[in-house]
Structures are given as C-alpha cells and as structure tokens.
C-alpha cells in the first residue's frame, strides 16, 4: 500500500516536471494555429508587441478596426513582456508570431540572422511609393539593400519651453545655440547654493548625437568608426562646459527620479528641455498650469540643424506561416492615410506615413508643427550593430565624467573614441 503511494507520488511529480517543460513554449503559438491558422474560414494572425496598459488599448483599437474592415483575416494582439527575448526563442523553435512590433534600431542586429522576412517584393507588387515614408526611417529598417518592414511611428526631439517664463522675461524662443544660452542664463534662478529654476535641462548626455549634428558632425564614419574626436565634437563639449560651469544653468542630478507628477518641467523648475512628443500626454495630464510651446532644435554655430529620429515599425518574422496576410495588415495600418491618422489620433504618436502627417490635425496644431518641421532634417541612429553599446558604454560614461568636471575635454573625446572604436569592432555583426 505504502509502496504504491510512493510510486503514485513519483509519477505525479514527474508529470508536473514534464508539464513544466512543455508550458514554456506552448503559449506562444496560442493554440489557434493548430488547424493551420484557419478557424471559421478566417486566417488567424498573431501580433506581438510589448506595449501594455494604454498602449495595449491603442493597439487593440487598430486591430479591431482592421478585423472589421474585411472578412478574410483575423488579427489578435498578444502582449509580451520581454518580447525580444521571447522572439529569440520563438524564432528558432517555431511559434513565431505573424507580425512583430519592432524597435527599428534592432534591424541591423537581427536582419543578418535571417529571422525577418524582406518585404521588397510586396512593395513593388502593390506599387507602394517609398517617398511616402521618411527616407531615414526606411534606412533604419534596411539591411544589405533589403527592406524588412514599414515604419509605424516616427519621433524626434524638439525644444519644449515654458511660455509663461519666456513672456515674463520678454524672451523669444531660441533658434540658435547662442540664443539658447542667453535664454537659459536669463531664466535660471539660484538661491545660494540651491538651484530653484534651471534655465535649460542638461540631464541627458545621451543627446550628444543631436548636438553633434547641430555642430555639423556625424557620430560614425562611412567605414564604421567613431567620428566625434574632432572640431565638431569639441564645439559641443565647449558649449556644454559654458552652460554648466560658466552660465550655471543646470545642476547634475537635478531631475533625477522626480516621477511624472513632479516632473521638473511640469512644476516649473526647468524652463527649457529637449524631449519628444511622447511627453506631451504627461505634460497635459499633470501640467494644469503649465503653458508650454515647442520649437525645432536651435541650429549650431554654422547654422546646421540636427535631431535624432527614432520610432517603431512593423515586421514579419521568417517563421510566419501567413506572410501574405501579415503584409495586408501592415499595409493597412502603416500605408493608408485614414488608418495612419486613426492610429495617430488614438495614440498621439506621429505616424510614419507622410500623407497622414500632411493632415490639418498635424499642420494646424502649433504643438505638432515643430515636430513635422524637425522630422524634415532629423537623422536616425547609424545602422551599425554595435552602435547602441558604443553609445551607452563608451560615449555617455566619458561625457558624464566631463560634465562632473572629472575629465578634461580632450581626454573625454580621446577616450570615448578609443573605447568606442573597440566596442564597434567587437560588436560588428558576424555574418
């Protein structure tokens, strides 16, 4: 009797163990692909994304609209935490989704691995006009001459300024580095050693790329080496040094961890900052008394303009069993004016489709107009697979030392170059 009980227990434990192994990959295919992805005569597609909360509702709005617009395809949105990691395992072991929400800069890392499906044939077949999209955003989705997806959103940073402070000080929004510096100086308020109002936010050294473009420079050379240890890089750092040490318009750590409700711009503790359209909903929500304006980034010493374009796209994994239908969905969402506009109004993102951006919704709104102007000259990050580690592990750390006066200007550029070149070489994709 007792023996029998032990055997039973062992069996049950084994069963649990096996179930534990099976459960990891099973959920991704959703089970509805079991009957070749057709149920009720419709093709079932899975769409993976990592936007939850509000973002999930916005995605589902679009998915529902698509499902209602025709009766052949049914898309289902699946929220995936840690989506990229899950996609890694799904791409190799089956269970990949049909459509993937895609942070565009990852293309240069994943495209060479042959896990994404090129869409050039569809573009030609359906006669889509590439000029309807920003060239830069398509470039970011291209690898080795093949296009891997279409841009769903575009964004760039522009200069937000506190209108009330500007009016009180009789200032005009800045259009050049010099005007920016003057305005920042005028609006900064110190109380002894306590900073009460920072004229201009300098909390993000990651914006170096943008400043470098304004100085007429580029982060990388054509052959994939760093390109900032030069006159342009020097101009940026001299400008930062002036703002921080001479004009004292900011204090390092000033905006650290304030959270949305206490955001320094909302509470009037920062007069100007560079940020993107993604912050507007926060400002509108918390900044009841905040009256702000936006202008394109001021131009550098030689009149160069610069901003960094970012954003997301939609791609089709190689593992999708229904690439044709997945393409239908992507085309419907990203390359159709009405739908792109519905998406924009639903989510307050700027769509990647230019004809939608030409709508009065964007052109007549003073808060959107500066962004569309900025996108005309904004450049995406270089499509080098090691770029993001280079920026994060070599450039930003050295800039932080510089901004805390712990490293000289020349050393900063030199070290960022040496460490940066090494990281670029180490992380150049192995094909």
């Amino acid at each position, binding site marked *: 009797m007792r023996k029998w009980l*032990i055997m039973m227990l062992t069996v049950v434990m084994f069963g649990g*163990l096996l179930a534990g*192994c099976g459960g990891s990959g099973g959920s991704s295919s959703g089970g509805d692909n079991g009957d070749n992805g057709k149920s009720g005569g419709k093709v079932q597609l899975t769409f993976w994304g990592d936007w939850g909360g509000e973002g999930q509702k916005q995605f589902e709005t679009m998915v529902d609209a698509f499902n209602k617009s025709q009766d052949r395809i049914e898309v289902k949105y699946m929220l995936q935490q840690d989506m990229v990691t899950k996609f*890694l395992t799904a791409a190799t072991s089956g269970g990949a989704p049909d459509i993937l929400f895609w942070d565009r800069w990852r293309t240069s890392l994943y495209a060479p691995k*042959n*896990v994404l499906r090129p869409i050039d044939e569809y573009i030609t077949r359906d006669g889509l006009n590439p000029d309807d999209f920003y060239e830069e955003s398509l470039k970011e989705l291209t690898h080795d001459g093949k296009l891997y997806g279409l841009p769903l959103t575009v964004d760039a940073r522009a200069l937000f300024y506190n209108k009330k402070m500007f009016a009180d000080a009789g200032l005009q929004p800045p259009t050049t580095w010099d005007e920016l510096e003057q305005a920042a100086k005028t609006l900064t308020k110190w109380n002894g050693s306590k900073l009460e109002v920072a004229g201009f936010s300098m909390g993000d050294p990651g914006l170096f790329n943008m400043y470098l473009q304004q100085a007429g420079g580029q982060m990388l050379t054509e052959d994939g080496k760093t390109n900032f240890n030069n006159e342009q890089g020097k101009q940026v750092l001299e400008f930062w040094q002036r703002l921080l040490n001479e004009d004292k318009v900011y204090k390092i*750590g000033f905006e650290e961890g304030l959270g949305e409700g206490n955001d320094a711009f909302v509470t009037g503790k920062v007069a100007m900052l560079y940020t993107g359209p993604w912050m507007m909903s926060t400002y509108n929500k918390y900044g009841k008394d905040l009256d702000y304006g936006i202008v394109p980034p001021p131009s550098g010493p030689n009149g160069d303009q610069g901003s960094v374009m970012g954003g997301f796209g939609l791609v089709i994994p190689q593992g999708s069993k229904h690439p044709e239908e997945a393409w239908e969905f992507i085309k419907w969402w990203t390359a159709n004016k009405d739908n792109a506009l519905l998406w924009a109004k639903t989510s307050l993102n700027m769509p990647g489709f230019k004809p939608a951006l030409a709508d009065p919704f964007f052109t007549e709104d003073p808060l959107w107009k500066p962004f569309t102007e900025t996108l005309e000259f904004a450049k995406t990050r270089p499509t080098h697979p090691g770029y993001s580690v280079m920026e994060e592990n070599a450039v930003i750390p050295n800039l932080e*030392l510089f901004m805390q006066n712990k490293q000289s200007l020349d050393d900063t550029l030199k070290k960022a170059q040496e460490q940066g070149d090494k990281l670029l070489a180490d992380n150049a994709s192995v094909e």
Partner: protein
Amino acid sequence: MASVNKLGRHQARMAYLFITPTMLLFAVFMVIPVVMALYLSFTNYDVLSSHDWVGLDNYRRLAGDTLLWQTFLNVMYYAVVFVPLNLMISLLLAMLLNKRKAGVKLFRTFYYLPTLTSAVAAATVWIWMLHPEYGLINGLLGYFGMTGPAWVSQTETAMLSIIVMTLWQSVGSNMIIYLAGLQGVPDYLYESARLDGASRFACFRYITWPQLRPTTFLVSVMAIIGALQLFDQAFVLTQGGPANVTKTPVYLIYQQGFNQLQMGYASAQAFVLAIAILVFSIISMRLTKAEEPIV
C-alpha cells in the same frame, strides 16, 4: 545478518526513489544548463543561426575587455563594503531584539518590512529621498548648513547610494536568521560564564560569536553571492551610471547575450563571474570555519 542486509538494501532503494525527483529537477535545471553554457562559451553561438566552435577565442577576448573588469571591480567594492556591514547590522539588530519585552515583536516586524518591497519600488522611493534639492537626506543635511551631493548622479556617491538602499532591504531577513541562531545558543553556557565573572563583551566574544559561526557562514555566503550578482537595484537606481561606476557584470552579460546576440561570449563572461563567486565563497568559508561546537 542476511535480513539486515536485505533491510539495508531495501532502505537504500527507497532512499534513491525518494531523492530521484529532486535529483532529476537538479539535473534538468542546473547541471545540464551549466554544462551547456560551458560548451557554448567555446562557440560563437548567437541564439539564432551560427553555432561554430571557436576554441579559446571568447576567453582571449575577455582579457582585453576593460569594461568587464571595471564592472568586476565595481561589485568587488560593493561586496567589500556591503557584506561586513550587512553582517554587523543584522547581528546587532538580532541581539537587540532577542529579548522578551513588550513591543519587541512589533520592532521585528518593522525591521523585516523593507525585505518585502520589490527592488523597483524601493529604488523609486530611494531616488526620491536622495534627490539633491528636494530629497529627505539633503534636506536633513541642509539643517546643519551642509549642501549634500547629488547622490545617485555623482561618481563618488552613486555606489554608496546603492549600498545604503540594499542594506536597508536585506538586513531584515538576515536579522531573522541571526535571531534563530541566537535562540539556538544554550543558556547554560551564559550561566556558567556569568558564575566565572565574565563580562558582557567576553560572553559575546567567547560564546555568542563562536556559536553563531555556522549562521554567519550562511549569511555571508548568501550576501557575497547576492553582491556579485547585483543587478536590479543598481539598474533601477542608476542605470549603471554615472560613468559606468555602478555597471555590474550581470548587466553586461545580459546586454552581450540578449541585445548583441553574442551568447557564446556572454557565456564566457558568465563563467568568469561564476569562478569569482566560487573563490569568494571559499575565502568566506575559510574565515568563518565552524569550530568544534562547545557543548
């Protein structure tokens, strides 16, 4: 005689039967992955396509990986400060609360509470407290006419901020372990010591501390492993900045494997970390070697 052997065999069989599930779990989820990772560290595995033997290339590359060694120094510094402080504070608290007085239970609960908060939630609160202008801590310093630093944004104080926060989070659970240890020290030892006229300090030095050696060993090894694998608190509080002073090996390994798709190289990095943890644990074992129990 034969029957005894038979019984022994039967018992052995049963014992194996009982440990089989555990051993299987251990093999499937520990041994096999470790062996796999060791194998992968000699390949250029990228999770997706390539999977070729590259010999010692990954380990050669480690030698020139200055950033990895810097992150090792970061966590060593962290461990050297964090582990002793952790032991001292949790032992002190345990001795303080090892009394039968009214309200002791309440205090035990209070000291244990921070352990229950998630790293992310705790970091969010701490960032706010450490804010240079409106933070509680610099506010207090302001009363004494001092201007506090920008704790998490300055290279000198960023790691200290993480140490303070993780101490606040971890002393509670170690205090509980020490409390259990203290209650396991037999009373007659103290009684005989007091009869011999031993001072309080002598009692601690010759009875409490030696008796707690196994507990100290457990707590310190766990703290060392935790320290060298520091990741989430550092990530939320400072994102590895400023100037890489709070980047940790685990963060780099994750980045190399999952962002850069160089899982082979990331496995090699992970093995170096594993060896470092092993070495530190052995040192700790030597330091807190349990003597013969004084019973």
